[in-house]
């Protein structure tokens, strides 16, 4: 083994470009660009600015929930209960406003607090009781959905005041209002993950939780935080969804967790924990949404669309594995 004096020098520009091209995000971005180009060539309605903005409106809910999901999966956990928290938030919003007579502002805040608590309960049991995340959130997936159904009693709440629809149905500066929220949230989430000790701790926990704890990292506190954050974002997404579709029903968000997890994993976050990034997740969310939209606009039926998305997911995981092996993060 030839030994070279180690240097504190950062990577050269050339190395940085190579690193980007060979990163999961780079590959995914390439796939996305190719997909957009191909779909644009095939479909006139697809390539309109209006369509892209509308797709931005539709993907916001999944995008918001995917941010904390990225954190959670990086630590080696999972949160299956986000779809149920989403539905529970919607129901509580409508119920407290319509049936309990809360002012709408207070109803919104109440529902978001309930969502955060629902997420925190997941985190508390996972950390303090040691329930595996998969089991805990599978249980609350049923529990929270059951609560939503019990409260809603198959009724739906409608007839919100006009200002309520600003968030879900209107634009701000020519862009769907909720898309601004996603953009800001994604930037903050990306910076926290990539640039702060908290973000670094998530990678350490996902790669080796024991070593993280032995290094003085508050492992339990950080894990509870991200599950609570997941609850809050699922709640926020639920609120935006109600504003977008003008009604609340207890089955809202059913299956949301699978779309979110698919986007996160497509974005290069390893389901085993330890790697992943917010930009990757956002590209994953966009790619899935544009594939769904573009394929349907080019006349591909819904069933075939799902097949294409599944194929893209598998391909991207193969590419990810290849890259991981190259970088030596996985043992051969």
């Amino acid at each position, binding site marked *: *083994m*030839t*030994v*070279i004096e*180690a*240097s*504190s*020098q*950062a*990577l050269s520009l050339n190395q940085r470009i190579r690193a980007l091209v060979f990163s999961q995000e780079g590959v995914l971005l390439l796939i996305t660009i190719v997909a957009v180009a191909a779909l644009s060539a095939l479909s006139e309605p697809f390539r309109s600015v209006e369509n892209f903005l509308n797709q931005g409106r539709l993907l916001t809910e999944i995008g918001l929930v995917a941010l904390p999901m990225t954190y959670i999966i990086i630590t080696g956990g999972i949160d299956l209960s986000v779809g149920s928290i989403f539905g529970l938030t919607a129901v509580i919003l409508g119920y407290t406003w319509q049936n309990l007579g809360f002012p709408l502002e207070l109803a919104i805040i109440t529902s978001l607090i309930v969502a955060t608590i629902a997420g925190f309960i997941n985190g508390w049991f996972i950390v303090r009781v040691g329930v595996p995340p998969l089991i805990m959130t599978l249980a609350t997936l049923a529990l929270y959905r059951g609560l939503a159904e019990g409260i809603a009693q198959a009724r739906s709440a409608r007839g919100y005041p006009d200002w309520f629809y600003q968030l879900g149905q209107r634009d701000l500066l020519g862009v769907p209002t909720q898309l601004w929220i996603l953009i800001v949230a994604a930037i903050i989430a990306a*910076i926290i993950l990539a*640039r*702060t*000790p908290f973000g*670094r*701790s998530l*990678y*350490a926990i996902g*790669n*080796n939780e*024991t*070593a*993280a*704890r*032995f*290094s*003085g*990292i*508050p492992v339990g506190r950080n894990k509870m935080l991200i599950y609570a954050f997941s609850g809050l974002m699922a709640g926020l997404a639920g609120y935006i969804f109600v504003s977008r579709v003008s009604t609340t029903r207890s089955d809202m968000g059913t299956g949301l967790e699978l779309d979110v997890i698919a986007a996160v994993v497509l974005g290069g976050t390893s389901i085993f924990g*330890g790697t992943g990034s917010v930009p990757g997740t956002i590209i994953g969310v966009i790619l899935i949404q544009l594939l769904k939209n573009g394929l349907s606009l080019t006349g591909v039926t819904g069933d075939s669309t799902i097949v294409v998305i599944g194929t893209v997911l598998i391909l991207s995981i193969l590419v990810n594995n290849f890259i991981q092996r190259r*970088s*030596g*993060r996985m*043992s051969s």
Partner: protein
Amino acid sequence: MGTPILELQNISKQFPGVKALDDVHFEMQAGEVHALLGENGAGKSTLIKIISGVYKPDTGVIKLEGQPVQFNNPHEAQAHGIATIYQELSLYPELTVAENIFMGHSPHRRIGPFNVVDWRKMFEQAREILDSLNIHDLDVRRKLSTLSVGNRQRVEIAKALSQNARILIMDEPTAALTEADVVRLFDIVRLLRERGVGIIYISHRLHEVFELADRVTVLRDGQYVDTKLVKDTTEDDLVSMMVGRTIDNLFPKLEAEIGKPVLEVRNLERKPMTRGVSFTLRAGEIVGVAGLVGSGRSELAQTIFGITPPDSGEILVDGQPVTINSPAAAMNHGIAYVPEDRGTQGLVRQMRLRENISMAILRTLTQQGFINRKAEAELAARSIKQLNIRAYSVDQVANKLSGGNQQKVVVGKWLASQPRILIMDEPTRGIDVGAKAEIHRLMSELAQQGLAILMISSELPEILGMSDRILVMREGKIVAEFDRSEATQERIAAAMMSAAAPNNANGVPQPAAMQEA
């Protein structure tokens, strides 16, 4: 000598950024125990992975009994009679001994159109193989998870023989064994040698090489150094061949001024393994903690460091009582802990060197809450320099470093926290002699600068060589204390095992390293 059973010529292997093996030769006769020596990172593991078909060499020839062969995967190597017993055993804990031995090639019989496992034959044949190894006390129907490590290893050897192995590679087989198990293992190795099996034996324990091996090949930095008859060489020769220089002193203990007490522990309790421990640690002092595996040494360290906070008792830092209920609290009081198991407790191996070294103090390397990457890289570079870590860059993934260098990274991480109390748990376990001497020198220098060091070790020479005072633990208590001047191996060993230790049939358990002196 006849045609060698195994011959490797001009083997080279390059990994990205590393020349792991450079023109290496190796040759072994049937019925020979051939030791393979070298520091961590010298290329031993790469070489045995090439022999066992895990890696393909970039250049060079492998010959089995004179015939050139090529292995595309481990199965092909196995088919040629090459079996490997790795450090981490590759057995199935939930299956029986016999099933493990015949995993993948169990005897079959036909019932109508079905091919089914012939259980009776499998148990009989497993019994025969074990008998042929003079192992008569192992029930082939027992689940593996109920066996001791030594017995599991015997199963692994039996498994290799069931595949008609002619070449057996043993990678640090004694690392986790008790003395009684080591003796039995050596008996088996000698038995296999008589039967004409060629055995490649890798160990960091030189006395084992002299006890067991016929010849020894030494690698250094991926290059072939020499092959010698064991009877024509000495320990000092081998060490200087391995490190490329003579190590004048493995235990460079320097005079340090011993100051005020910095850590006082009074009646510390944490059930079940820490039971009323009291001691004092002074600035500039190295206190060694000896004891058998399971005597509660690591548990004590982890209680002081807040991983398992105490149930009762007092910890005083600089004479002030402190509450330590988490590692973060311990760090705030200037305590650092280099844990016993660097793979699972010390390092995040998938992460970069820079990220590992900064891990414990990352919050101090921030500007407005953001990680200051420049400061982080500089810290890592300073550590690399101070500890002489052999790495290509601060961005290297820790996994790619050799064991000794990984250990230095863990030490670097904790020195970065600028502790005043450093607890080191087995600081040199499983690392090569060169890195060992470097870590010992560093400890001495740190003590000279006024650091208080509590060193847990299972190696009595290390305890004797480095400590100012020695505490002996047994069953969660401190049972004896010796000054440096009055300590001897015999006295410490006696205190470690004395009256309370049951004299069972397998003999008194002994610290693995005692025989190394």
